[in-house]
């Protein structure tokens, strides 16, 4: 099996249990709590503090992709009129809503309310409008204006005002009230968890790197779906201990680390291990990535709502390409990276349309070569392995010529 080329983490079983519990409890053990479907960049701390159960279609559809079930669900959505050019997370999720019998876990349980935050893309607004129309449930769109230059005070006031409106929206929809003390406590747990996650990522500065990109991608699930929950914090502390031990014993994620790479964009879920093995075969390890770094930024201390507004408006996908260039250049320096690979992802325009421009600027800034590979996060129909293999081969030769 392809996975054999990876050292399996001992915490893998705990991760699996945690995620199974997450999905099972949302279905069977809600104890009368309303269920919200939310986007990965939604301020979940507020929902948790209001005793709302949450599910993340983005996580669910990534799981569909990993199980090779996304493409058939995409086709269901396409038969309902959704273009094949639209985001495959959106198509997979809508397909699973239209035809749950053919979806993993028979689809997600029906939501009582929907919350979409456009800090990751504009697609989520349209996707959640479609869900709201289909399920006839209320939708709240949290609008975090894009930051081309500096984050403006007027932007923060606007987002804070909407967070207050979000609380009233949930109160109206569910009758649940916000417990402010609980919110502070959850924000604290959320911060602790993002801090530990950030420290785990930083452990990969070691040589050899204790983790490779697929490890980061598999282990990011709780930071997205259980952010603010004690169970996630506990899990990441265990993972941190294991990764620290790998660093102490100089155990690398891959058998022989020759090249240290940076990954940019969402994973290719349908070929996760198989794709990264094309690099492992050449001794290339992805020691850092941009995507899973999106959940390593803490909510500033103090009043919760302004802190939440600032944290959620400032995530990198809501900031300029210039910001991304600076960030990638600093990751390349800090992690001792020799090359970077950009997944030009048909499903994600805000992440992908600027990659050629970013690649050029990062190469100029750092002198490190970058490779762009076009594919899709979830829809395997666009995946062509042979040309990808050839391009990877040529890229590795470039890296080897430089050393």
């Amino acid at each position, binding site marked *: 099996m392809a996975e054999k080329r990876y050292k399996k983490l001992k915490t893998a079983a705990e991760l699996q249990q945690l995620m199974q519990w997450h999905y099972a409890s949302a279905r069977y053990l809600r104890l009368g709590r309303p269920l919200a479907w939310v986007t990965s960049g939604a301020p979940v701390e507020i929902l948790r503090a209001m005793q709302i159960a949450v599910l993340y279609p983005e996580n669910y559809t990534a799981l569909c992709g990993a199980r090779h079930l996304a493409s058939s669900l995409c086709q269901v959505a396409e038969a309902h009129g959704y273009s094949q050019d*639209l985001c495959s997370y959106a198509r997979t999720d809508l397909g699973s809503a239209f035809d749950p019998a053919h979806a993993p876990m028979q689809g997600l349980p029906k939501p009582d309310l929907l919350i979409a935050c456009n800090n990751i893309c*504009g697609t989520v607004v*349209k996707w959640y409008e479609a869900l709201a*129309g289909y399920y006839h449930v209320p939708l709240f*769109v949290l609008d975090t204006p894009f930051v*081309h230059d500096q984050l403006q005070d007027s932007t923060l006031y606007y987002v804070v005002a909407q967070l207050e409106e979000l609380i009233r929206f949930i109160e109206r929809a569910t009758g649940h009230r916000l417990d402010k003390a609980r919110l502070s406590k959850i924000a604290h747990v959320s911060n602790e968890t993002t801090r530990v996650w950030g420290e785990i990522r930083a452990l990969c500065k070691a040589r050899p790197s204790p983790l490779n990109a697929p490890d980061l991608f598999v282990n990011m699930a709780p930071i997205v779906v259980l952010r603010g929950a004690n169970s996630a914090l506990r899990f990441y502390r265990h993972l941190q201990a294991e990764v620290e031990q790998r660093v102490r014993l100089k155990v690398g994620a891959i058998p022989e680390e020759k090249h240290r790479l940076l990954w940019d964009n969402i994973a290719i879920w349908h070929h996760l291990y198989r794709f990264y093995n094309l690099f492992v075969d050449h001794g290339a390890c992805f020691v850092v990535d941009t995507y899973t770094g999106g959940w390593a930024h803490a909510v500033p201390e103090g009043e919760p709502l302004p802190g939440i507004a600032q944290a959620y408006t400032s995530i990198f996908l809501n900031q300029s390409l*210039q910001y991304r260039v600076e960030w990638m250049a600093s990751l390349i320096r800090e992690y001792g990276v020799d090359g970077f690979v950009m997944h030009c992802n048909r499903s994600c325009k805000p992440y992908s*349309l*600027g990659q050629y421009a970013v690649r050029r600027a990062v190469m100029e800034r750092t002198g490190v070569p970058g490779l762009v590979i076009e594919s899709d996060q979830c829809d395997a129909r666009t995946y062509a392995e042979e040309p990808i293999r050839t391009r990877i081969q040529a890229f590795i030769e470039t890296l080897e010529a430089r050393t």
Partner: protein
Amino acid sequence: MQSPLPLADSDLLAWIADPYREWSQRFPRRRAFGYLCTYAPLELLHAAGFAPVRIMQSSGVLALAEAHLPTFSCALARTTTEQMLRGKLDFLDGVLFTHTCDTLQCLADIWRLAAARFPVLTFSLPTVLEGEAARIYLLAELQRLVDTLEATFGVRITPNQVRASIAPYNLQRRLLAELYARVEHLSALQVWSLSTVGMLLPVEEHNALLQRFLDSLPKATRHPRSGPALLAVGAIVDDPLVPRLIDELGARLVSDDLCTGSRCWDTLVDEEGDPLSALANRYVRRAPCPAKHAPGQSREERLLGLVRTKGVQGVLFVQLKFCDPHAFDYVPLSQALDAAGVPHLLLESDASVSAGQVRTRLQAFVEMLGSGR
């Protein structure tokens, strides 16, 4: 095709086909400022002393843009970037990007990273165009644009100047509404060329042109045009192909809900009171683009309303390939039409779609409508 009113001796359609090359020679005393989307506050650019000029798609070979954009970006992004990289937009003093779709959001930064030879300004208007918080933020963002224009170009933009710039744009909106009200006596290509040229000319020139044209129309009703009544819905129609085909096939284009059509001019700006508030209020009241979230303004209801009031027999969805907001809205809009029993046709434009294919599909649709099914 002869245009009824030549534009200073040259043909209107020829001017639209290549508007940028001679723009500066034709208007030597005007400074042009580029924009791409209906949400650009043209009044503020005008008040800063500029003539706003819309940046449209161009035909021709894509060579330079390929290195800046992936294959799955829309033709608007690719062809405008090509023109920028080839220096064809260097007559502009600047370009304003307004926040609507993910593509334009990226394009603003891509143009900055590609070192466009003019300032690239941004206007991050809210996505949610409802409620007091959005209105207050929008007002602050309009003020920020005023400040940026003043600082970048060393100009002063007073409330009186903004007010003075609102007037010609309101006049343009009224004249375009009047033009659309007379469509039963006009060809689709006439309406298209007279409205499209308005995005390329200084507003005063366009207003004079429209006024002359409307005055030249006979007051008495001639025989109104016949043929199936069509409505065009979607993003950008900046190529005469579709209106020309509608005329040739004997159909009528009675109205539209397009980024290059009625959504440019559908609501007037209040001429009383604080001018920035008046501009903000229009943003909230005007027909929303699908990249905006305005649950109080259902696009389905608006579409069905247009179908009813204009006697529409068939709807044309005119979409750009890879335009996500319109592709998403196509589903509920087409379902609403199905439920109302209104036939519709999706025309997706892309480099791979030939004029012949568009003609074949449109012809079959018009024939189907004409035969009463």
